[in-house]
């Protein structure tokens, strides 16, 4: 028995035969199926149900009709503008929410009096619907981009804020004590202990908020807009252009999925330490 044999692990990379390639492809396929099988099945079922007439194809158009509407919209260029302006609105709101919620959450989670003072009013705000308050926002911010971005920001703020506060509170107090003993300033404790410790929770908040930012496009582009993916959803619905409506919804969902997996990926990169031994 020998211990502590520190040797470089050598990647065995000999000639791979055709069989092996096949086997590997099979394994890849199985893996893909176990991940995306359900999703694929859902889409196949939809297509079959719609074109087979089990569900009303006027309300649930077949996937191919949706895709062709999307294709025409995107490559005809019509929807590209919508996507650009919507991304700008959501992006601004999301960035603003991040810039407000994370520092505020870090503070509120750490400093009890601040939390006590801010909590009631923030909770009240949280409970008021951005949708219902839209007239109020228009009054204060006008019909332009500001009110749209603000409506989205408003709804996007709270999932992130709540998750950040909770994440901060769950950080191991022993580590904070350790940092304090070594003379870390409050901001250093935040940066080096509290923030990394709250990362998983903050990322849940980020993922919820990113989704909210995109979903709120529909509500915020209901007023004072003539462009945007959310506008297209409601406008297509109003004019009963269902494939176009679904195309716009799918585009929103696609953007949401991209944002979600980008955040999941970012979290994995940041938290590589947590599965170093795998």
């Amino acid at each position, binding site marked *: 028995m020998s211990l502590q044999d520190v040797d470089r692990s050598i990647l065995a990379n000999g000639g791979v035969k055709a069989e092996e390639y096949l086997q590997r492809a099979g394994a890849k396929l199985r893996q893909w199926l176990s991940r995306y099988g359900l999703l694929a099945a859902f889409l196949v079922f939809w297509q079959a149900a719609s074109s087979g007439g089990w569900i*009303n*194809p006027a309300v649930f158009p077949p996937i191919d009709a949706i895709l062709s509407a999307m294709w025409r919209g995107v490559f005809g260029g019509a929807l590209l503008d919508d996507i650009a302006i919507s991304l700008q609105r959501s992006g601004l709101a999301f960035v603003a929410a991040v810039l407000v919620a994370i520092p505020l959450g870090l503070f509120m989670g750490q400093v009890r009096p601040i939390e006590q003072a801010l909590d009631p009013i923030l909770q009240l705000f949280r409970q008021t619907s951005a949708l219902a308050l839209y007239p109020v926002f228009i*009054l204060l911010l*006008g019909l332009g981009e500001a009110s749209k971005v603000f409506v989205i920001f408003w709804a996007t703020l709270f999932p992130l804020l709540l998750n950040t506060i909770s994440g901060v509170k769950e950080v191991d107090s022993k580590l904070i004590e350790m940092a304090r003993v070594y003379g870390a300033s409050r901001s250093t404790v935040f940066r080096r202990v509290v923030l990394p410790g709250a990362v998983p929770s903050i990322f849940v908040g980020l993922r919820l908020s990113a989704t909210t930012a995109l979903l709120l496009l529909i509500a915020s582009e209901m*007023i004072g807009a003539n462009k945007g993916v959310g*506008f297209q959803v409601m*406008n297509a619905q*109003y*004019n009963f*252009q269902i494939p176009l409506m679904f195309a716009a919804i799918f585009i929103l969902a696609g953007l949401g999925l991209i944002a979600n997996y980008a955040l999941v990926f970012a979290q994995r990169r940041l938290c590589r330490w947590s599965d170093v031994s795998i």
Partner: protein
Amino acid sequence: AAQSPDQVTLRYLASHGSISAHEFASELGYFDGLGVKLENVGYASGGPESLFGLASGSVDIGSAATPAVINSIASGNDFVAAYPTNGINEEVKSIFYVLEDSPIKSIEDIAGKTIAVNTLGAHLDYAIREALQSKGLPQNAANLVTVPGPQLEQTLRSKQVDIAAVGYWQATFNGQIVDHGGVRAIFDDTDVLGEIAGGFAVLRRDFVEEHPEAARNFVEQSARAADWSRENPEEARALLAKILDKRGENGALAKHWTGFGLRPGARATERDLDFWIGVLEREGSLPQGKFKASDLLLRTTASAAAN
């Protein structure tokens, strides 16, 4: 009311602060003894929600603006347009307002201005396009933004838009704006579109086939109620106030109501639909020549006779 053995109940969605001819007919008792009964199952906040309800079988009467009706049928729903629920004429029209001190005086001035409309791709949108075209301006010369009815006045007065287009069906909002004063009308949609229907009540074709009598009575009595309201506008407003109060809404708003804007007998013309079929075909959302107005309209003995 006499209960005939084949009583048919038609479910429908009401709309905030407004009324349809069939609701009047029901309230006036026109359906009594004809085996037709209406049932309000809730509200729709504009848009074609009722068409989805109709497709799902949750309601039996849908109603929506003409392009939505055409699209819903074109996309495979087996619907028929029963009768026009509203439209524009000399009494009922959509008006384009500006603030009193605005430099905008006529259609020529609207180029480059911001106009609030309730939705794009529909009646007001095309009224503006026609207006611009009639003056030799490009159709997209004005900047349209969507603003729901309740916020129209607010956005005009706070100068967030230059022009507020108040739809002919938004009588209460129109009344409020006029009451509060300080605004000026620059043109209306009849100037450019002439008389045309704006939206239709829609029935499912299988429903019509199953209950032809009820469908015919529904259309005839609704038309009769529309005629009554045109001939007795004061009584109609009083009745509307009563209905609104009964529904728990604001009956005081009934005084703004101007009528349905329908032809006598709630008659539909081919142009009511063909105008929109043309628009949709030009936009490419309808295949060329596939739909004709006559395919979409419900033919009852009454409406056939009126044609």
